């Protein structure tokens, strides 16, 4: 990462933060329905890992906290916001919603709402990559609490047995919904759990994007070089509740203050200011520009987009006119 990269990443992370904060407002305004899981606090995880990978080329899959991962893969933020608004122009045509953002063109293979569901799907994509001989890798982002599902263990085992090009990124934000990790999980350091599958694993500071990038570079290189799966744990924190329906009453104020002091955007901003790359005014101008883009470009697009037609309720359930449904083309 050179200086220009860091400056770009600062803007990308700031955009992600403001995007998510605007989602919060739109939810309160009832423009967005359903469940809404926001990403503030964890930005360095996604941006640091994907900076070391190849966004739009490598296949990415994740859980329901998925807006930012899609955007980093190359999805137009307008299409993500339109999806949250339930519009036909949404990246999933208004059929998916916040937890089911998809953009196959940019190899963002979806957000899934079942905790731990993407583990085997990621291994399967890696199997396909291997069969087809591509140089892509499969990257699965999930939280620490997903590791208590059986799919975690089943998938790590298969990924190792079959030497699959899959990178599992664990964003350890210390909470599974509203339950603190030490109350639900025998081992807090998740990378240690991977030892049982003989898969290389590492832990890094998930708030400092440079540290994330360095750790991810090793991970991505390992997987892409054909050496098999890798597990990277990033220690992080989400600043909001698990979802919008979360009272957030389960966390100590001291803990929240400590992690607020380790805001990934502020950390990078201050480093760049200290190094003389940007000034405080530059940052303010960047923020203003981001906010304007979100309001004038992203929100306006979502607002103005049409609703899906109710008459098309069963569209996309099955393939259109698949000949084999009728017994092939005889």
């Amino acid at each position: 990462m050179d200086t220009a990269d860091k400056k770009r990443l600062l803007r990308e992370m700031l955009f992600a933060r403001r995007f998510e904060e605007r989602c919060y407002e739109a939810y309160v305004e009832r423009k967005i329905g359903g469940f809404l899981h926001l990403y503030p606090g964890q930005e360095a995880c996604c941006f640091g890992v994907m900076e070391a990978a190849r966004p739009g080329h490598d296949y990415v899959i994740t859980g329901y906290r998925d807006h930012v991962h899609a955007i980093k893969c190359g999805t137009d933020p307008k299409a993500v916001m339109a999806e949250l608004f339930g519009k036909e122009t949404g990246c999933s045509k208004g059929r998916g919603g916040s937890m089911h953002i998809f953009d196959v063109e940019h190899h963002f293979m979806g957000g899934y709402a079942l905790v731990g569901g993407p583990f085997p799907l990621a291994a399967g994509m890696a199997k396909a990559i291997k069969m087809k001989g591509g140089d892509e890798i499969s990257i699965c982002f999930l939280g620490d609490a997903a590791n208590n599902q059986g799919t975690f263990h089943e998938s790590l085992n298969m990924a190792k047995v079959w030497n699959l090009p899959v990178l599992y990124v664990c964003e350890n934000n210390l909470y599974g919904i509203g339950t603190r990790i030490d109350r639900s999980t025998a081992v807090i350091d998740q990378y240690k759990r991977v030892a049982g599958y003989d898969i290389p694993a590492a832990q890094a500071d998930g708030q400092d994007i440079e540290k994330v990038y360095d750790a991810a570079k090793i991970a991505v290189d390992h997987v892409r070089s054909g050496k098999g799966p890798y597990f990277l744990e990033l220690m992080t924190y989400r600043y909001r509740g698990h979802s919008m329906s979360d009272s957030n009453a389960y966390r100590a104020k001291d803990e929240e203050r400590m992690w607020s002091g380790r805001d990934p955007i502020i950390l990078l901003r201050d480093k760049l200011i200290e190094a003389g790359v940007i000034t405080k005014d530059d940052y303010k101008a960047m923020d203003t520009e981001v906010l304007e883009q979100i309001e004038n470009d992203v929100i306006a697009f979502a607002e103005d987009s049409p609703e899906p037609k109710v008459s098309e309720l069963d569209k996309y359930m099955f393939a259109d006119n698949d000949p084999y449904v009728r017994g092939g083309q005889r």
Partner: protein
Amino acid sequence: MAEIMFWEAIRRAHDEEMTRDPLVICMGEDIGVAGGTYKATQGLYDKYGAERVIDTPISENGYTGLGIGAAFLGVRPVIEIMSVNFAWLAMDQIFNSAAKVRYMSGGQLTAPVVVRSPGGTAHQLGAQHSARMEKVFMGVAGLRVVTPSNPRQAYGLLKSAIRCDDPVFINEHELMYNMKGEVPDEEFFHPLEGSEVSREGRDVTLFGYNISVHWALQAAEVLAKQHGIDAEVIDLYCLAPLDREGIRKSVSKTHRAVIIEEAEAPVGVGSEVMAIINEECFFELDAPPVRVSAENVPIPYNHGMEKAAIPNPQDVVKAVLKMFGK
């Protein structure tokens, strides 16, 4: 036209599709080196190798999910779940991932995966190896469910299921793998929707699927020879979506319906067919439709109790005679 066994028909479909398309793979417990519990993949490991004929760990939800993920990128996996009882463990991936991904992605992503699994009551396998789960699968939007009753269907349905872009669940039966039947020598694809008239008749329609088609046919012979009742037998090889038109057509002709299922009655194929009859052709009926189903109990181990828990052709004959007031 050669007469081959049910398992040979499945094996032939695998073999032809794997020869044609290098992205067709099969996976499951003991299907490779061991040749498959029911021989449906016998010899394929030696022919296509470990990368395409995959012996999986005993992790049903995990390997089913892995197959679905591979299907996202164009691989065509045929997943064998050794017993349908174990498919309960894979339901999360089959229902939440495979059946929903096309819809919730707005048509961008498809999961063209085939899951094959035998259910049914075999020989004293006890409660946890005797499930009949088709009723569960057919109730999930986004999933196709077919169930062959003979080797020809077993071959043709698997061929079409592999090539179809939708996820397909194939419900097989543990007692039917050694059943013999004619399969055309030339390649063919069986429709994944519709139903089939297995025996034409005028007086009553017997709806069966998978093994219960054979019970219906046996009952029809007895009814014709001993009671002068001419039964039509409809083979519902497709359980999702059920063939509304085929059901309507037959009942409109015979005006009577009996549905035969090896599974327990509640929330089953029988209740669904009855609902369709109500919706499509209620006023054509001369008598209330009847179900011949299993007792609503876990299947017991004891042989006599096991037999008593599931229906047989005599039960079908009795139900029809009762319907005719005989």
